[in-house]
């Protein structure tokens, strides 16, 4: 058993001629909460999406619990079962109810019977505070509610790792708190999390480590206190000035 949940070794990614990720090394330990910050276009989403194989690496290696996800013998679907992902635009399935969204994967993948899946879905809805919305359709929910359902949907697979890509960026300000609250509780319970966010207050509070991305590389990383209060790099300072004074 590897000592890290996620290991990225000299990972590169290019789209055509465009080199987007240029040699990233990043390890995430069990129970660790890593927050990725950086300007738009720095490559944060691409890095996050490579962790569960939504993007393939151009070169380098990604290990999940010590297993190379690009290896021929690796079943990427099995790897994904233990990595939950939450998207900026929720991506709930509009043709299914909240209950349908949450129970689809566990039942389709034979992880739970229909009854078990429904029972667990209700528990997950309790975690995100939406027990009364089980039968609602996604279109009937507010953005904040949709995002919490999306978190419940990911949690229903009992993942070891959760990835969040700007989960509150598409929300009205008054909805942000509810979603961050759920994430905060997950962090407290010891969930291993990799989060891309611009919510610096939240990052300061829950992150074990903050990673600053610049132009496809990790420019600087460390404890939240160190990064936010004593950034070493000029570019980190500039970035933080911009977001904090926005």
């Amino acid at each position, binding site marked *: 058993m590897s000592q890290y949940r996620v290991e990225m070794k000299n990972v590169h990614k290019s789209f055509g001629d465009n080199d987007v990720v240029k040699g990233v090394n990043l390890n995430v330990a069990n129970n660790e909460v890593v927050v990725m910050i950086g300007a738009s276009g720095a490559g944060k989403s691409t890095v996050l999406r490579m962790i569960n194989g939504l993007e393939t690496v151009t070169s380098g290696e990604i290990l999940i619990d010590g297993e190379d996800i690009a290896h021929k013998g690796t079943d990427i679907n099995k790897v994904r079962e233990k990595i939950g992902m939450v998207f900026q635009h929720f991506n709930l399935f509009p043709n299914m109810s909240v209950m349908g969204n949450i129970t689809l994967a566990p039942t*389709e993948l034979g992880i739970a019977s229909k009854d078990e899946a429904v029972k667990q879905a209700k528990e997950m809805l309790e975690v995100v505070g939406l027990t009364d919305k089980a039968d609602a359709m996604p279109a009937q929910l507010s953005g904040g509610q949709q995002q919490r359902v999306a978190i419940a949907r990911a949690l229903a697979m009992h993942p070891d790792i959760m990835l969040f890509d700007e989960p509150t960026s598409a929300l009205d300000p008054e909805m942000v708190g509810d979603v961050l609250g759920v994430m905060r509780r997950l962090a407290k319970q010891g969930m291993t999390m990799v989060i891309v966010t611009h919510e610096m207050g939240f990052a300061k509070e829950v992150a074990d480590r903050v990673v600053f991305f610049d132009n496809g590389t990790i420019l600087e990383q460390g404890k939240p206190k160190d990064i936010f209060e004593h950034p070493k790099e000029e570019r980190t300072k500039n970035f933080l000035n911009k977001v904090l004074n926005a």
Partner: protein
Amino acid sequence: MLGALLPGKTVAAAQKTYTIGTDVTFAPFEFANQDNKYVGIDLDLIKAIAKEEGFKVEIKPLGFNAAVQALEARQIDGVIAGMSITPERKQKFLMSDPYYKSGVVMAVAKKSSIKSLKDLRGKRVAIKTGTDSADYANSIKQKYGFSTVTFDDSNNMYQDVTTGNSAACFEDQPVMQYGINNGMALKIVGKPAREGAYGFATSKNNQALMNKFNIGLKKLRANGQYDKIIERYLGNGSAKSQKAAAGNSQTTDRSFIGLLKANWSTLMGGLRETMVLTIVAIFFATLVGILVGLLGVIPNKLCQGTATTFIYIFRGLPLMVLALFIYTGVPSLIGSKVPAFIAGIVTLTLNEGAYTAAFVKGGIQAVDPGQMEAARSLGLPFGKAMRKVILPQGIKIMIPSFINQFIITLKDTSILSIIGLLELTQTGKIIIARNMEGFKIWTMVALIYLIIITLLTWLSNWVQKKVKA
């Protein structure tokens, strides 16, 4: 003793069946009577000869051009369609002894002042594709300074002259006479040209059938049956007897309602064929379209390339070209016949299937890519994600296109009349060939299409509402 155990060489068991192509609108040689049965001099003759010589015939009213093409492709064994014996045809086919003497005549509208070929200078003349009369017209058009316009069947050609679009038409003399006897507002001017004879044609390798025809024809001429057949359709020479002979196959009530009543069962037969073609074609085209459309969204270069190529080819080819290619082109490639119905279904399946594939692919691609990512991030394999998440959303997007495609398929069946399928359009052509009532019959055919399409649209809207709910 042994002989009794061997299969006996009885006549009945050994009777060979030959497929014979004919024209559809070449009265009095071949035309459909009121019961939609094909009758005419050619048909009575070939049947009498078959009986005399102990073989069977299956008659395929394909239209003149399609019949000749089918014979070239060896889809059929012979053609009897008032076909003039010419040196060119003798090179391509075996031609029988002459069975009817004819000549090319010129006909003009009843009130026309045209009296001879000289009056045609600067005018337009209607001809029928592939006929000897057309060949004649083309050979003299330089000299007399007229242009030609081509039609696929006699009636359209006559109509072009009666409406005044063309100044004259050229047609074989007995056929022209029959049309005029039956009320075509035309008159014959000048003397017959290119006096020649009609013959029966087989492909070069079918000497056996040709011999049977020639021997049979001799026998019929000797025993008087031949004269009886001619008299049945053209009378004994007098105009009066011609009219009487023609009257056998005509309706007397020529009003819209009268014609509708008289031709109701024939039209309904055509409609039935159209519906069968439409339903079978929609079934297969939808199946093929969905499969190819799905192939087009599988993240694999070969799959996508195959789908794109399929769509490109079969959406690009005109339906009529595809139908003729499959019906008359493919048989020479694979060395066996393709029945017209099968050829029609394959044609529609490929063409409509390509359109369906294009909008199935487009419909799937119109689903937010985030949906696939979300499904895959949960660990669902591609196929499951496609079936459970993407397709249900894509199908909603596709439904209007499906309905549209069904209606187009229904209309496109009419193009299959080119390969002789007796669907609604072809039925209309055949009825008009008999009664020369182009305007009224085409109105009926058009109304039937509109009614069916309206019903289909209502049904689709109802289904669409159900799905949306």
